[in-house]
């Protein structure tokens, strides 16, 4: 892109080819009013508010669509132009029937702003009589309210829904003076293709679109914005909590265009999922259980009890008798302190966090192949990928904003290969969709790689120079023919060939995967095999090309980075390494614990076996999140002492001896690390209810009570201690990430952070090929259990649902468990749409509603796990990955009958 010199209002400025006048003016802080333009969507030049004079043009042009050319002379603010804009505004005001005095958008409305800037006469504004909102497509929606009286027909909502979200829920209907926004056939928004992202609200320049529940809770001008990071998924969207300065409540969530990584976009959970913060079900006082009943207690008493009991158990039975479960919902600082308390006050390596439930195989698998267990590329690079290989991942639902980046790439013509037993959004839009049987991933990838080598599509130079152990890996592949794979996976052989060729030849290609890969008894091997595929084709170590596990929880990357894993310390420094141990012994002034330690799935087994006796559980609910619920409860009940730190009374907390009230994410400071390794701030926006304290403070109190004093003035101090001990975080501090987060590795204070990994050399030196053999899932179907059940997440809810289900807009969309089944299976079983069915596995049964269609393949079933009263994990199999002990949530044999 060449530089172009132009003058705007007599000032010399330089732009780039393809830039519009409006973009260039904005870059140079020259304000041009505009109503129908939004940088996220294509300009259309409809409102004519942005008219400017260009020398040589007979008439004024619209700055939002007119591209600059060399030596252009532009005037943006002549009397004539101002008069034209004023006329545009007057026309809009004749149709506008609303009053700023009662409008929620008061203070953040472009129409109002320009009416003032252009001094629109009172007469014009008065001429507009006010009118009550008319019934329309948004009537009845708990999320969004549309008021056609305030709509200026700029089309931003319609276009963002179509171009960015690709939900196509909205349209203009009617013509001439009767045009308004609606859905197809005026159906209710909730019944349309709308995914409740609220992008339309974010695009609306007036108060015509607004969050329903935010209405009347404070006009924009009395809201204070607090920048923070979304508490839900690993995308780590930046958002502003709009807090009413009088009521001290969060009124709405907005996001600023141009913020990293989400550019003002949010998904339903980010925009509409905050209500749990102000829920009256929040815990507000410490609780101690006496005679099977909880009673309220003071902090001092509760902390003293916890400290005493944990210490007693530890002293009496040794380091394997207590365990610490940290949480990836919490901050880096809190995770750092949890592994610290475990190894100092607790004297044990029994420390884990929820990644064992999800991405532990990623951490282990990619670390063994490449030397670093994280997403190799950045979110910003997604839009430039040319061939996607998406396997076991449903990005438009589970990582919606990364999904939007993928949609951008698709709009630019990217190719898409999707391997998924379900017809997800990406699968439906794929060039090749391989709908393989759950649990046959390694058969598929092995056959693809065999085919790639046979046809000489692989990157021989890359393999020779940058990788090792190729020969034994190659030997192993020879058994895996395409035909054999087609049979085992239940798909057409040609599709596998096509997928292999497309991926190998992409310029560049990139792999994206999620829990469809990891939640198997061969989870780590699945991950290693994807690493094999990338190395074989040289599709790694480049911009927009690599192996990208999309991390599930907001801080699951950080939780692992902080060393809340039995075998590693912060920054994946190995416990087994004596130099590392010595460093931490010095820093923490302790003797390093000598036991090996285990994973949460071990904790539960050991509790059942009477080895584990004391359990400190931070913000996790294993009763709902671990497989085979009945067994989990039975095991936990055997523990002598359980302490839970929670924001709500959870199913696990009900079994606890002490429950301590913690602050939510909106009530504390700290950092989260998102999926692309970006360390980002969260900030306190509102006060905690009752006596709730931040988790990190509670951990310090408990540690002190156990005899290892810990105290910090703030989260930033904790971070600094961690960074001083963690090379990959060494250059990061709260100050440096105040505006934009930094991506690790960032070893020193001048380092700019790292966008993509393994550039000239793998972190471990050479990339290591692993020889992977296909193994069947732990459970296979038989006569009694003829179907395969997989579990997963939906767009609308999050994990066990105790946060998302507190939001009315979300509850309205999805509040009950369901099971997806193929219509051919439904027909055989005589099940009709909406029927209740009983789903049974070897471990339990639950009754839910049937959703019938072709989203799953014949013989397959799918269920979400978000619903406390219909817990899917009664059904799932407690069979584990041989390396990381992650459960096989994706495959269990099941039977269905009409209830």
């Amino acid at each position: 892109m060449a530089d172009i010199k132009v003058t705007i209002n007599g000032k010399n400025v330089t732009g780039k080819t393809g830039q519009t006048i409006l973009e260039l003016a904005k870059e140079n802080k020259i304000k041009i009013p505009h109503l129908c333009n939004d940088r996220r969507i294509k300009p259309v030049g409809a409102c004519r508010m942005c008219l400017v004079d260009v020398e040589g043009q007979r008439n004024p042009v619209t700055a939002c669509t007119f591209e600059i050319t060399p030596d252009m002379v532009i005037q943006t603010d002549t009397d004539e132009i101002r008069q034209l804009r004023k006329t545009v505004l007057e026309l809009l005001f004749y149709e506008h029937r609303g009053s700023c005095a009662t409008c929620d958008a008061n203070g953040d409305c472009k129409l109002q702003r320009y009416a003032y800037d252009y001094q629109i006469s009172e007469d014009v504004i008065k001429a507009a009589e006010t009118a009550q909102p008319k019934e329309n497509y948004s009537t009845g929606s708990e999320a969004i309210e549309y008021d056609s009286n305030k709509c200026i027909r700029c089309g931003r909502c319609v276009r963002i829904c179509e171009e960015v979200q690709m939900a196509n829920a909205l349209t203009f209907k009617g013509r001439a003076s009767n045009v308004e926004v609606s859905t197809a056939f005026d159906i209710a928004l909730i019944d349309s293709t709308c995914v409740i992202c609220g992008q339309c609200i974010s695009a609306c320049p007036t108060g015509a679109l607004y969050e329903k529940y935010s209405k009347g809770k404070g006009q924009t001008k009395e809201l204070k914005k607090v920048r923070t990071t979304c508490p839900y998924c690993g995308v780590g969207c930046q958002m502003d909590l709009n807090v009413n300065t009088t009521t001290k409540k969060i009124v709405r969530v907005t996001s600023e265009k141009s913020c990293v990584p989400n550019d003002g976009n949010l998904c339903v959970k980010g925009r509409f999922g905050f209500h749990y913060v102000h829920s009256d079900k929040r815990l507000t006082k410490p609780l101690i259980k006496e005679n099977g009943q909880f009673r309220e207690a003071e902090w001092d008493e509760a902390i003293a009890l916890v400290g005493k009991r944990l210490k007693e158990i530890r002293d009496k039975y040794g380091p394997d008798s207590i365990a610490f479960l940290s949480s990836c919902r919490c901050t880096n600082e809190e995770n750092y302190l949890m592994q610290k308390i475990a190894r100092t006050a607790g004297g044990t390596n029994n420390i884990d966090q929820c990644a064992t439930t999800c991405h532990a195989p990623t951490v282990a698998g990619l670390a063994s192949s490449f030397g670093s267990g994280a997403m190799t590329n950045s979110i910003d690079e997604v839009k430039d990928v040319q061939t996607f290989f998406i396997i076991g991942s449903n990005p438009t639902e589970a990582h919606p904003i990364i999904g939007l980046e993928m949609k951008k790439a698709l709009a630019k013509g990217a190719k898409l290969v999707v391997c998924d037993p379900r017809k997800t959004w990406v699968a439906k839009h794929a060039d090749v969709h391989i709908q393989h049987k759950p649990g046959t991933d390694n058969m598929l990838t092995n056959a693809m790689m065999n085919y790639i080598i046979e046809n000489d599509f692989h990157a021989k130079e890359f393999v020779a120079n940058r990788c090792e152990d190729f020969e034994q890996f190659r030997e192993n592949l020879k058994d895996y023919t395409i035909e054999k794979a087609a049979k085992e996976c239940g798909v057409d052989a040609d599709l596998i060939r096509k997928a292999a060729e497309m991926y190998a030849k992409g310029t560049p290609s990139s792999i994206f995967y999620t829990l469809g890969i990891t939640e198997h008894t061969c989870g780590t091997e699945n991950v290693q095999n994807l690493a094999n595929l990338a190395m074989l084709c040289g599709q790694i170590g480049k911009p927009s090309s690599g192996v990208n596990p999309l991390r599930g929880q907001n801080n699951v990357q950080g939780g692992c980075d902080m060393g809340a894993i039995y075998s590693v310390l912060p920054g994946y420094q190995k416990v087994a390494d004596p130099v590392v141990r010595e460093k931490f012994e010095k820093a923490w002034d302790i003797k390093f614990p000598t036991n090996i330690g285990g994973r949460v799935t071990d904790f539960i087994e050991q509790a059942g076996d009477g080895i584990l006796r004391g359990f400190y559980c931070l913000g996790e609910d294993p009763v709902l999140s671990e497989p085979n619920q009945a067994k989990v409860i039975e095991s936990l009940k055997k523990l002598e002492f359980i302490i839970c730190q929670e924001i709500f009374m959870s199913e696990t907390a009900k079994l606890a001896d002490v429950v301590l009230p913690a602050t939510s994410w909106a009530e504390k400071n700290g950092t989260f690390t998102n999926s692309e390794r970006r360390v980002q701030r969260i900030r306190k926006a509102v006060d905690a209810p009752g006596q709730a304290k931040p988790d990190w403070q509670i951990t310090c109190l408990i540690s002190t009570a156990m005899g290892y004093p810990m105290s910090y003035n703030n989260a930033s101090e904790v971070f600094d201690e961690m960074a001083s001990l963690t090379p990959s975080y060494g250059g990061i501090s709260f100050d440096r990430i105040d505006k934009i987060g930094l991506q690790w590795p960032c070893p020193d204070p001048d380092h700019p952070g790292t966008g993509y990994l393994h550039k000239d050399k793998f972190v471990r030196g050479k990339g290591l090929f692993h020889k992977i053999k296909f193994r069947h899932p732990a459970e296979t179907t038989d006569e009694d259990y003829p179907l395969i059940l997989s579990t997963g997440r939906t767009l609308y809810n999050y994990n066990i649902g105790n946060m998302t289900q507190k939001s009315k807009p979300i509850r309205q969309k999805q509040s009950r468990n369901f099971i997806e089944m193929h219509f051919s299976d439904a027909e055989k079983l005589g099940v009709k749409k909406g029927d209740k069915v009983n789903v049974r596995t070897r471990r339990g049964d639950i009754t839910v509603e049937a959703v019938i269609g072709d989203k799953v393949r014949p013989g397959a079933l799918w269920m979400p796990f978000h619903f406390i009263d219909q817990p899917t994990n009664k059904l799932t199999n407690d069979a584990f990955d041989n390396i990381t002990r992650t459960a096989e949530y994706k495959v269990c044999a099941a039977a269905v009958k009409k209830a």
Partner: protein
Amino acid sequence: MAYKPELDIDISLVEAILDRIEQARQVSSSPEVADAHQGRVSSSPQVADARRVGGAAGGKVSGDDLIPILQEIQEAYGYLPRPVLDRVSERTGIPASRMYGVITFYDQFYLEPHGKHNVRCCRGTACHVSGGKKVINSVKSALGIEDGETTGDMLFSMETVTCLGACALSPVMVVDNTYHGRMSARRAEQVLQQLKVEEG
């Protein structure tokens, strides 16, 4: 095997229409299709949108074909039944919302079942000053329905429109695409009577 929800409407008609248009697409850009929207108000945002999206979805039938598809469907079913439109959306990737935008933009499309004969009376300025109102009233009473309604026997629908583009012949009434100029209340009634007789 594609999943087909149960419908109480004969969906095969629309499948045939789409098949035909798809074939026409393959045999280069067919002239009928191109003609079909020459001269239409193509600057409408809805129509422009429909094209853009249909194309992006990569279907063989694109948003460009939307108007002729809608016309053919209306011809075949007498109106535009929703399940049929949903099917079009599913097969072509043209979102239902875009179709709705286009449908509501034009007078010619009906989303509800419509009479066999369609009577349109002009209430444009020229017709109004030359007695259009009387014509309209006479049609209403002859058929026993109001503006926008359909007779119980599904034989006639009537509606008023702004200008039929034949002001020189005002007042104007159009029955099933046949223009009747210089109408009076009595002549309008005769035209309808004639049709009623033909229908038995």
